[in-house]
């Protein structure tokens, strides 16, 4: 098969995407596919028209690649692509929208409020911060509504830290989410398939000496310990997989997505978000989950490619 690997692009996660792309390309070559490397730029449509690949393997992260934009272009060009379709990408990309879908599907997600930058500038939303604090409690997680990889995310432990956390989050997106901080173990479940989605083993990320799994911990070997499969009682691992598949279906995902959740000290699972295009770097969770499943990364890449399709 002639496969175009779409990578790089112009998002804040460009470097991570290049590393995901390189790993996907290497796997596709070993699988015997003809690989066309595409560092996404303003010539993307022209390049794809000229090359007419059989499928596009999307290794883009962040704005443009994960929010449905590139998917829409591929629909127009009629090139089947890996991962979720346009609408599912849009739902997953906006954490506020995704949380609404989780809640509607009966999945627990930490309570949160979301505001646009304009709410603070024009409606005086800043004065409502004390009420938000009272209802959600401290610490509060403040994050951009639309941004991958924990960029701009911070934890406000005291009331005085909330405005600075909002400033930071609003530097990355014009909408922010203030979310109750749920302490516990950080779990990630990759879901594959389309009509019958199935989950890879649960991976646990244990950040070393850090508040939460932030950008540096995510992409720097040695800052995070990964345990795959996570050491969990069977019933909890099964429940995590069931929830992940429920979320995957609730957003209308296909092919591949990764669901991030917290296991709190009372053994309750809280879904935080779903990543439409999970990372495939050496430090990413997907290759670890693939190994834990006994499949290996190449096999998982082949299955993701087999699900490449058009349509929402």
């Amino acid at each position, binding site marked *: 098969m002639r496969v175009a690997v779409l990578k790089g692009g112009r998002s804040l996660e*460009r470097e991570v995407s290049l590393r995901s792309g390189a790993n996907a390309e290497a796997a596709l070559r070993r699988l015997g596919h003809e690989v066309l490397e595409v560092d996404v730029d303003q010539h993307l449509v022209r390049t794809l028209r000229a090359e007419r690949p059989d499928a596009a393997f999307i290794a883009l992260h962040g704005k443009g690649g994960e929010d449905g934009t590139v998917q829409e272009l591929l629909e127009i060009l009629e090139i089947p692509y890996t991962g979720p379709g346009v609408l599912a990408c849009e739902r997953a990309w906006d954490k506020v929208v995704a949380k609404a879908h989780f809640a509607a599907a009966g999945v627990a997600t930490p309570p949160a409020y979301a505001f646009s930058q304009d709410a603070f*500038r024009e409606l005086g939303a800043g*004065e409502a911060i004390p009420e938000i604090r009272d209802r959600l409690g401290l610490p509060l997680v403040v994050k951009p509504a639309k941004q991958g990889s924990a960029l701009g995310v911070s934890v406000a432990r005291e009331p005085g830290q909330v405005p600075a956390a909002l*400033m930071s989050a609003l*530097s990355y997106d014009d909408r922010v989410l203030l979310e109750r901080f749920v302490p516990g173990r950080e779990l990630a479940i990759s879901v594959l398939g389309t009509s019958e989605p199935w989950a890879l083993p649960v991976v646990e990320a244990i950040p070393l000496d850090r508040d939460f799994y932030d950008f540096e911990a995510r992409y720097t070997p040695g800052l995070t310990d990964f345990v795959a499969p996570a050491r969990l009682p069977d019933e909890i691992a099964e429940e995590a997989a069931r929830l992940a598949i429920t979320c995957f279906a609730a957003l209308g995902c296909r092919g591949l997505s990764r669901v991030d959740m917290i296991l709190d000290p009372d053994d309750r699972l809280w879904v935080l978000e779903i990543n439409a295009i999970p990372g495939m770097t*050496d430090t990413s969770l997907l290759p670890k989950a693939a190994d834990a499943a006994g499949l290996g990364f190449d096999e998982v890449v082949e299955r993701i490619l087999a699900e490449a399709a058009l349509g929402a």
Partner: protein
Amino acid sequence: MIATDHPEGDPTHQRTPPPRSRPPETTLRPIDSARYDARFASRAAGIVSSVMRDLMSLSERPQIISLAGGFPNTESFEREVFEEIVAAVSRDHLAAALQYGPTEGLAELRELIVEIMAHEGARAGVDDIMVTSGGQQAIDLSIRTFVDPGDTILAEGPTYPGAVPCFTTYEARVEHVPMDGDGLRVDLVEEALDRLGAEGRPPKLLYTIPNFHNPAGVTMSLERRERLIEIAHERELLIVEDNPYGQIRFEGDPLPSLWELDGGAGWVLYLSTFSKILAPGTRVGWVAAPAAVLRKMNLGKQAADLCSSTISQRLVIEYLRRYDWRDYVTRLNDIYRSRRDAMLRALEEEMPPEATWTRPTGGLFVWATLPSYIDTTDLLALASERHEVAFVPGRGAFLDGRGGDSMRLNFSGVPEAVIREGVRRLGLAVTEMTELHRALGGEV
């Protein structure tokens, strides 16, 4: 046999390269990095990637105006001059230029370096000089030669961001000493020596850039230089004087170097480079130091690269023999002066009244400090995404997490009209942050 018998060149040197296909990016499988984590040396484990670096890669986007670089202007070097010196190396020194050279550098180049230092009022002898692969290697060798893991060293705050990896690689504990408009606060150097001495960890050395500091843009006053040397002599403080920018002066008279003020007492190592007075692509720099120190540095350099590129050294020699390097520096300084003026004017017009910045009389950089409620790492995300302008956030110039309210702006590598537009965009980004801060109930 004469050359014309082989119009295609020597048969052992075919003019047609063998056919090539584009190599794969990797042939390795995704490998669980845990197996290496357990083996990494502690100095390598301490080197982490950063949000900042990923943000910085954005500044390479075509439509972004980058004030983040540190690039000298290389476009004004004349092609004819370069061709002439390449031809001279090829004609007169080919075999030697292709050969290994002495670790300490070609003797002829060391003589020429002595002349260049003399022009700056820093008197040295040929045996005091070792050629290095850029000024960067001179920094690396200085730290490598003196710092054991856990040793304390002093450096300005902010310090040269490019020296930070050397400090972390050799696991130095860096104590930043603040600066003001007259450069390093020498009184605080004394205070740090007292305090660190009492804590049982006297600093091994002080790393300082006295002239047109990168990134701070300030120059150490004569009075402070004299006092610093007094302290060095009284308290036996070893000083690493990094002077890459001394010749990049737009006005005023040069101040004596610390090396000169030391008067040959051996408490100063002097580092410099051809990167700013000629071209960074040469990767030729040097260190001047006492013989006992050079002997150890020589061993360090043997481990690192045996010798600096002989081709490069020879090109520099042939250039210095034929041309007065000061003419080229004068031309560069004229360009940089206009660019600095354009940047200072634009900052005056576009920055909010609470912002402050340095007014460098030389070098390549302005250091700007914003109101403390603005974090310049976050500002870079906003500025590059929404306003298409980039800079270096201040945190990169500190090892202790400070610098969050500051930024480095480069003027040497950007034409004046682009500087004006870049600073205008920066002003928009800062205004956006300020308004947001006010909307969140903050005092402005």
